[in-house]
């Protein structure tokens, strides 16, 4: 590097290698800056050196917002830790800002003393204006609370790749994020080798591209070492991780794999009918690519059609699923009720987003719980499962099908945008260890009746069209049990309503009992569900380390609740329920159990911070 930056401090500061348990870094820039790409690679390398990782992308609010503008900023946060971690972290200690807009939208999340790495080459008058800065924040002292490292990244990058032949300007431009990655590796004491090997494998046939990427990454790393701008480097010890093969996985990927796995474990076709909607579309896209697994995807003309198609597919004998978000559930509800009346096994995935109405499609909320519980006409009990982490989406998707098939009823898989898009390491299960899902299709006309029930599960038989002698009609009208004939008889109607409720209630017999993390009795139980798992668990762990008598429990089954939930609630003096809604689970719990729970609602489109829950715990315990 011929040219070191002009802003080099006069005196060399001491570089110290600081051992920390956990740290978070956020990469932010235009979509084209590849923040997601280098963030993902940073996470991969960290996983390989033995840290636990958790990542969270932050998408631009607008599709293809112009480069350099505030709505065009995308970000990617990675948290790495020597301990088991559950969230991507509250606030990043380091922010890599590729342009003024990225700085502006992200800098407020940084704690005092945090490091800002800014690409000064992009702090042009034009870009500053687009971000709404009058003056460059790098020059006007407004960032005095942070440690700002000014890096003429584009310039340095171009020099670093100058020796590589045959690169177009566009290619060179696309590689510049690797400089930032190299610099981040230096700050966090990560090796370059895993990334170099990855580049060699992926671009082996294009040596100049490997050379360009590696050269600039090394230049970034060396820049950190040379400029003495950084007073501190961080070292994060290895986490104790169970042996096995791992991959990073997002909630939507895991859910899609879970749906396929369930169908495969039953030797069935997977039918997935869906209408594109944020943040559930990735399910449809992922499944559409898996046609060699006998997956049949149907991109329906609307949400209603998507739901209707699953009813037909389930009647025809496929493992049928649909996926959507809250607005889609609203449209599907009438057809969901038809599935309930016809008693057909269907999995309905709701990847929740900010509501009501169109709300905040790219932001996460848990505010569809009551919609899923009660948002249909008539008494309409429906089973609901809720994954707690991105990788748990796999297990709960399989579980949703297991329940649907066992009870012959629709099951709601209640995920959210935060789970859907966050990723974490997943110890890949051996599919051979996953129990098969048994399906039974009657063939004997002598004993068959459409609504003859299994005395244990109350499930009716799943007779398939094409079976001679079992011709029958299903419909949404009130009916007689057994024959399924239309009936408006008062007793029949009461009986069928009882059966539908009882069938769901009995699911509690087959699901695991609720467990708690921490003391079996105590001052406070923090109870959550869905994507708040990480924040709750981390906050409760902190509280326990402080000596507070606090336990955590996380519900993965919301309807029915695990059988022992009422007992658990009684064992703590108080129960706190943090939720990304205005208190919906609290309402259910307070309606069902004598214990009064304290609601802690939040609807800001953002996940809970660990510190918010910690503060609330302290508040309640008077600490």
């Amino acid at each position, binding site marked *: 590097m011929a040219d070191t930056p002009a802003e080099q401090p006069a005196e060399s500061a001491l570089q110290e290698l600081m051992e920390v348990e956990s740290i978070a870094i956020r990469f932010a820039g235009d979509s084209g800056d590849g923040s997601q790409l280098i963030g993902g690679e940073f996470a991969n390398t960290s996983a390989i050196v033995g840290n636990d990782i958790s990542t969270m992308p932050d998408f631009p609010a607008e599709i293809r917002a112009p480069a350099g503008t505030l709505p065009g900023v995308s970000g990617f946060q990675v948290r790495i830790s020597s301990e088991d971690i559950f969230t991507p972290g509250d606030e990043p200690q380091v922010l890599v800002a590729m342009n003024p807009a990225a700085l502006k939208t992200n800098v407020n999340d940084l704690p005092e003393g945090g490091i800002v790495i800014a690409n000064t080459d992009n702090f042009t008058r*034009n870009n500053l204006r687009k971000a709404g800065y009058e003056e460059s924040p790098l020059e006007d002292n407004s960032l005095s609370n942070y440690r700002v490292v000014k890096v003429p990244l584009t310039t340095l990058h171009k020099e670093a790749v100058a020796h590589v032949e045959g690169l177009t300007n566009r290619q060179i431009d696309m590689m510049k994020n*690797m400089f930032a990655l190299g610099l981040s590796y230096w700050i966090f004491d990560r090796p370059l080798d895993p990334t170099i090997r990855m580049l060699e494998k992926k671009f082996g046939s294009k040596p100049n591209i490997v050379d360009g990427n590696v050269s600039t990454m090394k230049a970034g790393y060396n820049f950190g070492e040379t400029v003495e701008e950084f007073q501190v480097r961080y070292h994060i010890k290895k986490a104790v991780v169970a042996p096995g093969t791992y991959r990073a996985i997002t909630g939507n990927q895991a859910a899609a*794999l879970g749906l396929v796995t369930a169908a495969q474990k039953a030797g069935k076709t997977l039918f997935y009918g869906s209408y594109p909607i944020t943040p559930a579309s990735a399910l449809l896209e992922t499944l559409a690519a898996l046609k060699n697994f006998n997956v049949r995807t149907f991109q329906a003309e609307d949400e209603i*059609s998507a739901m209707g198609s*699953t009813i*037909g597919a389930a*009647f025809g*004998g496929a493992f049928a699923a649909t996926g959507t978000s809250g607005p889609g559930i609203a449209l599907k509800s009438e057809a969901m009720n038809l599935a309930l009346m016809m008693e057909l096994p269907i999995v309905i995935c709701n990847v929740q987003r900010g509501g009501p109405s169109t709300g905040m499609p790219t932001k996460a909320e848990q505010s569809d719980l009551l919609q899923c519980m009660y948002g249909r006409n008539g008494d309409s009990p429906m089973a609901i499962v809720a994954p707690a982490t991105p990788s748990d989406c796999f297990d709960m998707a399989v579980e949703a099908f297991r329940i649907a098939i066992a009870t012959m009823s629709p099951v709601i898989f209640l995920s959210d945008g935060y789970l859907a898009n966050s990723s974490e390491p997943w110890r890949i299960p051996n599919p051979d260890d996953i129990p098969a899902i048994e399906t039974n299709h009657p063939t004997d006309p002598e004993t068959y009746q459409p609504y003859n029930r299994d005395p244990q599960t109350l499930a009716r038989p799943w007779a398939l069209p094409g079976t001679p002698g079992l011709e029958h009609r299903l419909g949404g009208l009130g009916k007689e049990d057994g024959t399924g004939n239309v009936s408006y008889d008062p007793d029949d109607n009461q009986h069928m309503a009882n059966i539908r409720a009882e069938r769901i209630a009995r699911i509690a017999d087959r699901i695991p009992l609720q467990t708690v993390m921490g003391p079996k009795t105590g001052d406070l139980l923090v109870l959550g569900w869905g994507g708040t798992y990480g924040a709750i668990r981390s906050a409760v762990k902190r509280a326990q380390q402080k000596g507070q008598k606090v336990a955590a429990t996380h519900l993965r089954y919301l309807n029915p609740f695990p059988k022992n939930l009422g007992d658990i609630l009684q064992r703590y003096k108080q129960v706190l329920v943090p939720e990304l809604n205005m208190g919906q689970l609290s309402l259910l719990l307070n309606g069902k159990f004598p214990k009064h729970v304290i609601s802690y609602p939040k609807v800001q489109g953002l996940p809970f911070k660990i510190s918010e829950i910690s503060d609330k715990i302290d508040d309640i315990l008077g600490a």
Partner: protein
Amino acid sequence: MADAVETPKLDRKDFVSDQEVRWCPGCGDYAILAQMQRVLPELGIPREKLVFVSGIGCSSRFPYYMNTYGLHTIHGRAATVATGLKVANPDLHVWIVTGDGDALSIGGNHLLHVLRRNVNVNILLFNNRIYGLTKGQYSPTSPTGKVTKSSPMGSVEQDLNAISVALASEATFVARTVDRQTKHLAEILKRASEHQGTSFVEIYQNCNIFNDGTWSFATEADVKDDNTLLLEHGQPMIFGKEKDKGIRLNGLAPEVVTLGDGVSEEDLLKHDETLDNPAHAYLLSRLMYPDFPVPLGVFRNVQRPVYEEQVVAQNEKAVEERGEGNLHALLHAADTWIVPEGPDGETVREVSEEEPSLSDIIPDISQEDQLAPRTSLQHFMYDPISSLDLPTPHSIPAQTSLSEAIKLMRDENAGCLLVVNKKQRLVGIFAQGDLFEKVAGSDIDLQNTTVAEMMTKDPTVLKASDPIGHILHLMSLQGYRHIPIVDPDGRPISLASFKVMLQFTGGLFAEPSVN
């Protein structure tokens, strides 16, 4: 239908269910049900392979009365359920029974899409031009002016023509028949069943309670021959009690003519149901009472790939290309790392063979990416100038002296300067070319001449939202070397130079995937 050979011969009674039929006495639905139960044994389809799917309405009770598999679904959605069923099991023979409200009002969207997809189902639309089940409100096929309980002063809505709607939705088989003409009805049902792809059949059906006689012009013995036209493939369009009238084309307009008197069969429009272009069928669909006889029979009968067969074919192709899906491989289809037993083992990384797809790295952002231009040409055509990283221009006030301007150009190595007025609006451009042409060699006082006197006034400018292609176009057409980019108020914000554009053009030919 190979399986039909093995099937024991069925008769009408085999298709009658044990349910009591509960339509109003005299309803046209009875005739349709009877014909269906008569026709099905002739088709040789095993009973267990038949599924009747309906929505809500009087007609939608139909599945209960058929001793086959059946689904009585919700209002308007029968097509969606049938589509899912056919995709799950393409071997089934699926009939959709619907009405004018069910199919054209609440289920209009689904009708459109099932037709365009060409799912291999048969749709029977019982059109009685009224809402019967809800006791007499106007429907989307009720004629304008129709007085009903919900339109006491007459409906002010334009009615829909079901056949026209089906044709506009790319239907491959479109026919019309009448409940009272049982032979014709039976024949159309058979043909609908035989067609591969969606068969759409409109059945004029009488609601004797709420809309009695709505089709009497087409059903009453004394007038029906004069008011209906039986479509026969390859035959001239002749109708009338005396078979003496015909349809002739006058330019693009059909007209009724009387045979004889200089008009022969040769002059008449000939029916061809197999025409790929739907214009002929559409023209027929617009023949409406009382100006024309309404056509009965098959309007259109063409072949197009069947939706569910293509879905299954993609499954088969995927297996052929990639092999039967392997769950173990699927779960590992990503970059993986192996954490060994014991604290000191080294973690091993396995890089996935697959190129990283953007959706792997940026889950759920793929909509954004799909909108991004894919080809160099698209970059060139659609990307706005604002997406280029153009340098900020050097702006100078109009009263700047030439000597100052030249010094600035030398110091900044600038090819040109933008001249602005007091409001910072662009008034001219002063480029190296101006220097050579107007200043060099002439006797000009550089200190006392302003740049405004020598600049090129009102230069061609572009806006940041204009496509990049406009810059290249102007440069190649006009030979400009610099084009100022200005904001809506005419203030310069950047400068497109020949050099920068050359770099950009070079970049268009880059490999799309760099890291």
